[in-house]
């Protein structure tokens, strides 16, 4: 598998990006030059080292409360990764299960699930986020919950469509003729064949969730206010963006990079798991 990854230029790039981000997250407390929470009002709103108005002590500058931008970026990777993966997993599990049941059993269950999906989709995610924040408060868990609630529908719909077509294929009939149970058919025969679809959706959703977290933090609905997240850094940079544009660039670049990495790796993974392709 590794060999194939190395061969694929785009897949390798995606993997390297993600490895880099994970590395940042894991070693945050070792490599950060400063404490991301420590405020130094005297040295607030400094620019990166290569521009005017900088201080060599703070490589990428400081924000409006004098906190080191570089350290906050590094620590910010933790939240981003956590939210991205957890949200994807939650949405994925719920979506795939519901999609499978809906597609396989059809009938009333299918109708009910699809109607719930329709209702879910027509709900603007901001409204949902506000509602949940009002009822359950804010925090990491709730961000994951919101991500899960908003993103399961895409999985469910795609999975349902695929299940509908796969369950009519001869190899599924053959297992039925052998006496295989519905559970066996779903887990051994249907799910592995829709794995590549699920992976594609997962990469798209992961990207979406990263951006979602950014928006929520932007609106103050995400994780507690002192925890650095890239989204929040983007939000906070808005106030001074005309005079201090660099503070928006770095979190923006990192978000973009993460999304890109996820998509590239996802593309490679989907191709790799397709037994018909010669990857």
């Amino acid at each position, binding site marked *: 598998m590794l060999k194939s990854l190395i061969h694929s230029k785009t897949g390798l790039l995606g993997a390297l990006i993600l490895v880099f981000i994970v590395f940042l997250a894991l070693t945050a407390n070792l490599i950060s030059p400063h404490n991301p929470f420590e405020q130094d009002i005297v040295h607030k709103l400094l620019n990166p080292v290569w521009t005017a108005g900088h201080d060599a002590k703070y490589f990428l500058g400081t924000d409006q409360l004098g906190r080191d931008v570089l350290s906050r970026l590094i620590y910010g990777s933790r939240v981003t990764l956590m939210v991205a993966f957890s949200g994807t997993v939650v949405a994925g599990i719920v979506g795939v299960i519901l999609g499978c049941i809906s597609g396989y059993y059809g009938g009333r269950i299918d109708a009910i699930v699809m109607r719930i999906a329709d209702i879910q989709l027509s709900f603007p995610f901001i409204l949902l986020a506000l509602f949940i924040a009002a009822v359950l408060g804010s925090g990491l868990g709730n961000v994951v919950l919101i991500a899960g609630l908003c993103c399961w529908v895409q999985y469910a719909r795609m999975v349902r469509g695929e299940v509908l077509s796969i369950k009519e294929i*001869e190899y599924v*009939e*053959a297992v039925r003729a*052998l*006496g295989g149970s519905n559970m066996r058919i779903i887990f051994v025969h249907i799910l592995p064949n829709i794995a590549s679809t699920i992976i594609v959706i997962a990469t798209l959703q992961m990207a979406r969730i990263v951006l979602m977290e950014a928006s929520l933090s932007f609106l103050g609905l995400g994780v507690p206010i002192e925890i650095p997240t890239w989204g929040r850094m983007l939000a906070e940079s808005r106030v001074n963006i005309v005079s201090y544009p660099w503070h928006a660039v770095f979190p923006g670049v990192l978000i973009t990079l993460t999304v890109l990495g996820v998509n590239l790796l996802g593309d490679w993974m989907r191709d790799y798991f397709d037994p018909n392709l010669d990857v």
Partner: protein
Amino acid sequence: MSSNILFAAEHIKKWFPVKGSLFSKEHKYVKAVDDVSFSLVEGETLGIVGESGCGKSTLIRVLLRLLAPTEGKVIFAGTELTSLGQEELKQYRRNIQIVFQDPYAALNPRQKVGAMLSEPLIIHNLVASKEEALQQAANLLKTVGLPADAITKYPHEFSGGQRQRLCIARALAMKPKLLVCDESVSALDVSIQAQIINLLMKLQREMQLTIIFVSHDLRVIKHIATHVAVMYLGKFVEYGSSAEVFANPQHPYTKALLSAIPIANPEAEKKPIVLQGDIPSPIDVPSGCAFHSRCFMNKKECSQLAISMEQCGQDHWSACPFRQEMK
């Protein structure tokens, strides 16, 4: 008749309702299978011949209980299958297996051969461990003429003919008594077809299999079947021993089919009966004898008569009341 009747179908009907429009009160049905009966003695090979839309695939699925019949009974070794519960039905499945037409769709592309062949054994608890299952899988591969190292491979690494062998191996894993082949050689090249036909015949001898072979190719049927049933729009129009039916067809449709077979001999004298028109849809089956709309005899009474199979020979039945007048 015989006491060793292994399998019997009695008045099987399978009608699929067609959803009418909001305003029509008419209930239309796709009469896929419309009153089919036959019985099979152990060791026989029944060939079911028919063209598209005749219902042979639906019939197979009803016989295998992949579909429930609208009416009628399916009886295996004295037990009526239509009355069985879930668990008993699962047991029954060990006795009758199927090999499908398309070897590319009949194998899960994400399942290795070893797992695929072990699956039936695991489902029915016939082995104590995974290793034992794989051992049996290797034996199965040998029976169908494939190398044992196929166990670790994926289906896409095999050719069409080899995949069909894998399908046959899977079907035989539980040592069934009855094997149903649904156009199992139709998608294969001629020389590969010959290999698979030979394999099936060899396995039949070695494992005392009873076979139902569905095909549209009369040449293949003649080669391997002991009995033939000709199917048209959901009904059997002729049934009997292979030798009799082919030597002396007693139904105009059978005659037309036989005459349409391309003969690999440019000097052969052939007077093909070219049927006019298309095969009618099973939703709108012509009245009386379903074949009358294309029959070269088509007498006035044909659209009104109630048709049933009449015995016309020692092991030969036909649904055409005017068979004596066929030229």
